């Protein structure tokens, strides 16, 4: 049973066809990496999954239901830039999600409830290695720390789906490796289905359980925008991780022991 089903998806902006005939079925717990030439529509695909835009044609099902028409806490996101709130310090950036969810009127918690939320956020920040920077503002953090913060901020909502648009594009190779380790660990700890866009093929090969290549199959030299990109290759990778994650997606109970081995 798949979590996400994409049926004959098209996206056009005026005359410009960006995506055409995208069909995809993704099981819960997969780590999909999207690669393709610049401008071929990977970010557009993520925006459609996020609900930020509506497809021109076709539809997306999430858990058997049509995808909600706007972003919601079920799908977390990390962008390459502008993912964290500049006016909040590290701790408040992560606590904010818990506050918004619990307090519909003021988006703010007080007293004991606020302390509980802050403790939960601090624990997660400790987990991603930002335990020492709780009081700093994002402008005082390095690029790698900002992306850690953005990931923690998304995960505190316990989303089923995590969308990452070139999250490590601006980081140096060493920091990038650290982020890969962190991301894989978090992916194992949480029941997460990940879609990640990258231009780094190595990154794709080392992280993905499934590599999706977007490309155009038809070209009209006189009208470069007439045809859009499709998923031209769909490559299963890292099968041992995939099997493990599939087992995790089973009802809990008999498998509870495995979680700790991870």
């Amino acid at each position, binding site marked *: 049973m798949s979590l996400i089903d994409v049926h004959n998806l098209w996206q056009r902006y005026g005359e410009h066809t960006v995506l055409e005939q995208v069909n995809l079925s993704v099981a819960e717990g997969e780590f999909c990496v999207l690669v393709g030439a610049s401008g071929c529509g990977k970010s557009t695909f993520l925006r459609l999954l996020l609900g930020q835009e509506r497809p021109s044609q076709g539809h997306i099902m999430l858990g058997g239901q049509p995808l909600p028409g706007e972003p919601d806490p079920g799908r977390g996101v990390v962008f390459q830039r502008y993912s964290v709130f500049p006016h*909040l310090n590290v701790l408040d950036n992560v606590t904010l999600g818990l506050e918004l969810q619990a307090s519909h009127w003021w988006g703010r918690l007080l007293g004991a409830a606020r302390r509980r939320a802050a403790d939960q956020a601090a624990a997660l920040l400790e987990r991603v290695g930002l335990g020492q920077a709780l009081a700093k503002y994002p402008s005082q953090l390095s690029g790698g720390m900002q992306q850690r913060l953005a990931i923690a*901020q998304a995960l505190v909502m316990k989303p089923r789906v995590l969308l990452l648009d070139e999250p490590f594009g601006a980081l140096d190779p060493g920091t990038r490796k650290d982020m890969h380790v962190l991301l894989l660990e978090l992916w194992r700890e949480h029941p997460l289905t990940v879609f990640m866009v990258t231009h780094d093929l190595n990154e794709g090969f080392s992280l993905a359980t499934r590599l999706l290549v977007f490309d155009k199959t038809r070209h009209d030299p006189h009208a470069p925008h007439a045809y859009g990109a499709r998923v031209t290759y769909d490559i299963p990778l890292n099968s041992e991780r995939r099997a493990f994650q599939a087992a995790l997606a089973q009802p809990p109970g008999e498998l509870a022991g495995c979680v700790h081995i991870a």
Partner: protein
Amino acid sequence: MRLINRHPDGPGRLLLVVLPFALLLCAYLYGSAARLADNPNDKLLPSTAQMAEAVKRMAFEQDLRTGERPLWQDTAASLRRLGMGLAIAAVAGLSLGLLAGTVPLLGAPLSPLLTVLSMVPPLAMLPVLFIVFGLGELSKVMLIVIGITPILARDLEQQARDIPRELLVKAQTLGASTWTLILRVVLPQLLPRLLVDLRLVLGSAWLFLIAAEAIASTDGLGYRIFLVRRYLAMDVILPYVGWITALAWAMDWALRQVGRRAFPWYHGGNR
């Protein structure tokens, strides 16, 4: 070394800061002395002693008729009007700009309206204000309000639009509604900008205040200046102008300090 790479520092910098003020002062003192030597009754450029005498009269001696010390009474009246005008304009401008810049359904009607309204010359509206609100306090405060609200609203609208789309999407994935998104994401990012904007419109606010006081008032700094103009009392006018300048400068400084203290993230982070 190229001129653009030479930076003044230390005492040299202080000298450069003080120099233009000192030059202006010297030019005045020289001109004043020359004219007074020519004609001791000259009123145009009073000497410092004459001005000190006028300040003493206005600030420290009770007016025989009213029992007030005019300078302080004028200052209190003007600052009250200015403060009310700025406060009302800040709240109105912030609300309008915030809503127009964040909620597209409100931005569609509000944004062109604000653009057109900001083109109406506020001083041309002054007679209308006097007719509608009478000659009392309200019309003076309203002149400041209608003069600077559109400026604040338009800039804050633009600032709200300039908040990266990613942040608004992110807030939605964290469960924000339109209302909580405004409250926790947009508003806190606009507040430091509001303080910057207030500093920028401070000059206009004083302009509108003085204009309104000059035309219809019985007290206030602007009223006094235009009153004593009839007697060519430059010895009063010049200290008053200096005092107004000092007040405006102090308000600008205070707003900057508040901004730095309250919004450290906006000014580079370090608290």
